[in-house]
């Protein structure tokens, strides 16, 4: 019986690993250390703020962030005041008003993060036919998650001599097929961080990845912190139920 149980467990474990999908094509992604990984992981507030700045000043020129409302930015530590100011930087179409006309007004915290283009076609027209995807869920929507995103942002190289580049595409070591429509987005000193952090390509890539990990899973810290409590409780509870079980069955095993 015990053998059966052990083998069943082993079989299950094997089944799980065996069925995890095999890695995507392309070179293996370098494994970065992310402070938000692991069961006690939390987002570094400084990185979240800097990452948001990188998104706002660089990425948001082409990529939307449609699942984020300005009010959500409270989650990265911005104050209500700051959020109102950031939202108000953008114009939002609202209406119809009493006369039946649409009108423009400054953005509010309750608005969706304003997208750079009105729709996909406008976006393609502006981007040489390519469509920069929405970034809200990017970290969850690619194999490798944050490692993939970081690798893409830092993976621009000169194309090897034997690679024939297509018009308007850029060589990237980690992009499937190596030819990516997004031009090198980050360059040294491209943004000026308020906290004085030097804006190297690596720092900007790390920070914006951290920010996008947050936009993908804004519940992550709450989830993990609750999880630790729940699991601890359940382990104790399991111990108790085992003790009760032993006690109830004691007379039968005698």
């Amino acid at each position: 019986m015990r053998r059966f149980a052990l083998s069943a467990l082993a079989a299950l474990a094997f089944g799980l690993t065996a069925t995890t999908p095999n890695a995507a094509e392309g070179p293996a992604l370098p494994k970065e250390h992310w402070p938000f990984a692991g069961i006690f992981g939390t987002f570094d507030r400084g990185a979240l703020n800097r990452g948001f700045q990188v998104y706002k000043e660089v990425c948001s020129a082409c990529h939307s962030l449609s699942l984020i409302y300005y009010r959500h930015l409270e989650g990265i530590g911005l104050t209500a005041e700051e959020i109102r100011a950031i939202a108000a930087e953008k114009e939002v179409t609202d209406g119809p008003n009493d006369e039946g006309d649409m009108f423009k007004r400054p953005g509010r915290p309750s608005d969706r993060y304003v997208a750079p283009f009105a729709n996909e076609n406008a976006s393609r027209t502006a981007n040489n036919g390519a469509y920069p995807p929405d970034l809200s869920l990017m970290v969850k929507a690619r194999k490798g998650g944050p490692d993939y995103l970081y690798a893409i942002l830092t993976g621009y190289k000169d194309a090897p001599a034997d690679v024939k580049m297509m018009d308007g595409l850029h060589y990237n070591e980690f992009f499937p097929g190596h030819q990516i429509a997004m031009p090198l987005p980050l360059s040294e000193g491209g943004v000026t961080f308020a906290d004085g952090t030097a804006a190297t390509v690596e720092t900007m890539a790390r920070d914006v990845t951290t920010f996008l990990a947050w936009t993908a899973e804004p519940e992550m810290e709450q989830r993990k912190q609750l999880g630790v409590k729940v699991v601890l409780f359940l382990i104790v509870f399991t111990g108790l139920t085992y003790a009760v079980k032993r006690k109830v069955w004691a007379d039968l095993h005698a």
Partner: protein
Amino acid sequence: MNAPEWKNPVVRWIDFRLPIFSFVYHELGVYPAPRNLNYFWTFGSLAGIVLVIMLASGIVLAFNYTPHATMAFDSVERIMRDVNWGWLLRYIHMNGGSAFFIVVYIHMFRGLYYGSYKYPREVLWFLGVIILLLMMATAFMGYVLPWGQMSFWGATVITNLFSAFPLVGESIVTWLWGGYSVDNPTLNRFFALHYLLAFVIVGAVAVHLWALHVQKSNNPLGIDTKGPQDTVPFHPYMTVKDLFSLSVFLTVFSMFVFFAPNFFGEPDNYIPANPLVTPPHIVPEWYFLPYYAILRSIPDKLTGVLAMFGSIFVLFLLPWLDTSRVRSGSFRPTYKKFFWVFVVDCIVLGYVGANPPEGYFLILGRVATIYYFFHFIILLPLLGWFERPLPLPTSISQPVLGGRAAATARHMEKA
């Protein structure tokens, strides 16, 4: 087996008119369970509790979900972000689906090992197979609801299978879709059916338990209970054992929900459905991978589809295919070995199903598919005739109550 005298007058008043208290007393209180049941017998009640968890989380998710092709994806993300504890609900439901299949597959393999499908529990087994089919349909349609890339393309690939049937195939597919492609009408009906089938499962489980309580549980020795010395009352003995199992399960389940909620998922399903972009690898959820492997290991589409459905329907024939009268694998030295070969075969099929059907995987898939059917259709009937089972103990209470030595001695005598 008389109901106890209910002391509480309200209880007595109700019970006289509708004996629900007596019913619970008989079916969950004094209901006799073989005293030698091991922990594999706790997976039934575990499956029942997972079903309740699925219903509870699913109903609340439905409060907030919008079954429309242009809104479904965003409504799910709204649940994740703006609904209070929405992420918890969704991750419970999402991982609960996988947990349900793990629990039920273990429950089934338990039945296979201990011969629980044999006389007199055939109908109980059939109901189980029906439940499995219902679960598969429910899980498949549920996976479509978030309307991500895998939802959409999984639905497209699987519904397209019906086009393999000659003459009527194409019409069936159009009928399933409610149009000429997977689109809003498909999503709408899948939502309705997903919700409906969950409750059909509840009904099927009720009948499953009815059949169980008529013939009572089998046990690890596979021999009949002979009297009160072989059984214990369900409460507190089995309730406490089930409770312990449940807490172990919940601990492991919580680790997935809170720390690795997307472990069983595909990143592609966080990309909104796009009919114009096909993902490079369309893979079903892990619990469908073995069937998917069977489907793809056969070059002819219709035969592949039939083999895939056949891999489940063969379970209906199992009580007749297995010709051995001995239930428990513990007393069937040869069957026991082949049981494990079969388990490995199923895992190999799952592994193959996760990979593209090319080269090495294609060959492995074909061998594993043939073996799957060989196990049921050829091996089991023959084993029953050729295998020499070990002598069975005379009763459950004997080997349990220190009679183990005596039973072993008997084995040696006859060997």
